[in-house]
């Protein structure tokens, strides 16, 4: 398998081209590591200033999409301990959260003293959503460069829920635990255009209802009333990890101090979700690249992961035998895979 000499993106990655030195077109558009680190520091400063402006305007300063995984745990700790924000942590139980991840949510929010809520969408809907996501072309190819089809559906549901809750409770900031490669660099700070969100979600809803059923509107719809009731001019989304230069190992070391423990059964690329390996298997089978490769490559570009570790991660693809119990659970015939 031919890979970029800088970031290890494979030749099977959609839209990839290599120059004569074996450097891919994504790297050619990306500054060198020093520039990237400086840019990251710049993002941190912007985030610092923004948070100061938005603090103490509401009962909660920030609502955090908290999966119980290592990245969102790190983000939550930073927001509470470093920025002193009054956070509301929300976990969406997607039907496949590892028991240890749920335990981590309780321990971490307890230790930090933050309010914590869980929302569990109906399992029937979720399982059908996952099944349909794998069996149909629900998501566009660029979205599939960032995450598997099942993850894209789940993330879309979570994002909508977070926006709706922030609007309902008049919270000025939504924080996520995304890292580089999962989302664009500039998603460190997003000034969410609510009118654009309304329009784009309306367009998507038609598609989601067709694939997931009429109940998709419960989970993917935003209304004008919700936006009009919101007391702030804008809703900000931050992904703090995009502003920190920190390795996976450093994250794990720090969050362990707060009682976090790694679940044993969530696979090589997740620290909270049991369905993740199924998503990777289905994606790799169809598209011949690991759905985490963009994230892994970005970590390499930033010097936060060695190429050797990155290749090992990228090439760790679960077998059908390892994920068949998951495909059975959501009703995907193995012949479909």
């Amino acid at each position: 398998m031919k890979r970029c000499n800088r970031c290890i993106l494979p030749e099977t990655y959609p839209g990839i081209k290599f120059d004569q030195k074996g450097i891919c077109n994504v790297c050619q558009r990306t500054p060198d590591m020093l520039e990237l680190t400086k840019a990251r520091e710049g993002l941190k400063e912007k985030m610092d200033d923004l948070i100061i402006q938005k603090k103490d305007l509401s009962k909660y300063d920030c609502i955090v999409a908290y999966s119980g995984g290592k990245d969102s745990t790190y983000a939550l700790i930073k927001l509470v301990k470093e920025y002193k924000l009054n956070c509301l942590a929300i976990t969406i139980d997607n039907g496949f959260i590892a028991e240890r991840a749920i335990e981590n949510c309780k321990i971490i929010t307890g230790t930090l003293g933050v309010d914590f809520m869980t929302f569990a969408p109906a399992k029937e809907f979720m399982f059908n959503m996952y099944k349909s996501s794998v069996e149909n072309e629900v998501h566009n190819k660029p979205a599939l460069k960032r995450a598997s089809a099942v993850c894209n559906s789940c993330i879309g549901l979570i994002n909508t829920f977070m926006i709706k809750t922030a609007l309902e409770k008049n919270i000025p900031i939504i924080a996520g635990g995304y890292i580089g490669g999962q989302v664009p660099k500039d998603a460190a700070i997003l000034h969410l255009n609510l009118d654009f969100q309304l329009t784009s979600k309306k367009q998507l809803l038609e598609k989601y209802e067709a694939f997931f059923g009429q109940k998709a509107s419960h989970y993917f719809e935003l209304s004008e009333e919700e936006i009009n009731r919101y007391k702030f001019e804008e809703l900000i989304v931050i992904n703090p990890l995009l502003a920190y230069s920190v390795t996976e190992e450093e994250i794990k070391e720090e969050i362990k101090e707060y009682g976090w423990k790694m679940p044993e059964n969530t696979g090589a690329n997740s620290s909270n979700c049991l369905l993740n390996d199924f998503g990777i298997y289905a994606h790799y089978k169809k598209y011949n690249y690991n759905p985490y490769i963009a994230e892994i490559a970005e970590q390499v570009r930033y010097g936060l992961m060695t190429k050797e570790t990155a290749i090992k991660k990228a090439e760790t693809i679960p077998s059908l035998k390892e994920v068949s119990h998951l495909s059975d659970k959501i009703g995907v015939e193995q012949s479909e895979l």
Partner: protein
Amino acid sequence: MDMMAETKKIIFEFLEENYLVDFSEVKTNTNLFKEGYIDSFGYVELIQFLENQFSLEIPNEALVSGEFTSLDKIVTFIEKKSREKM
């Protein structure tokens, strides 16, 4: 190559590479959002690219005005803003 043609080429290549738009099948006035080529994160990437590439600041109101929905509209907007800067 004149400036407009150069601008078009740059944006064309960006859309092709990042959003896998095949312009042999897609028209230059196709609504790329409606057709599912660009989602909300893709939109962030697009705006960032345009601002950096052409040294512009894109105002909030432009983001919902439908000015970035197709290659043709994006080129027209960038050309207009670039002329205003001069």
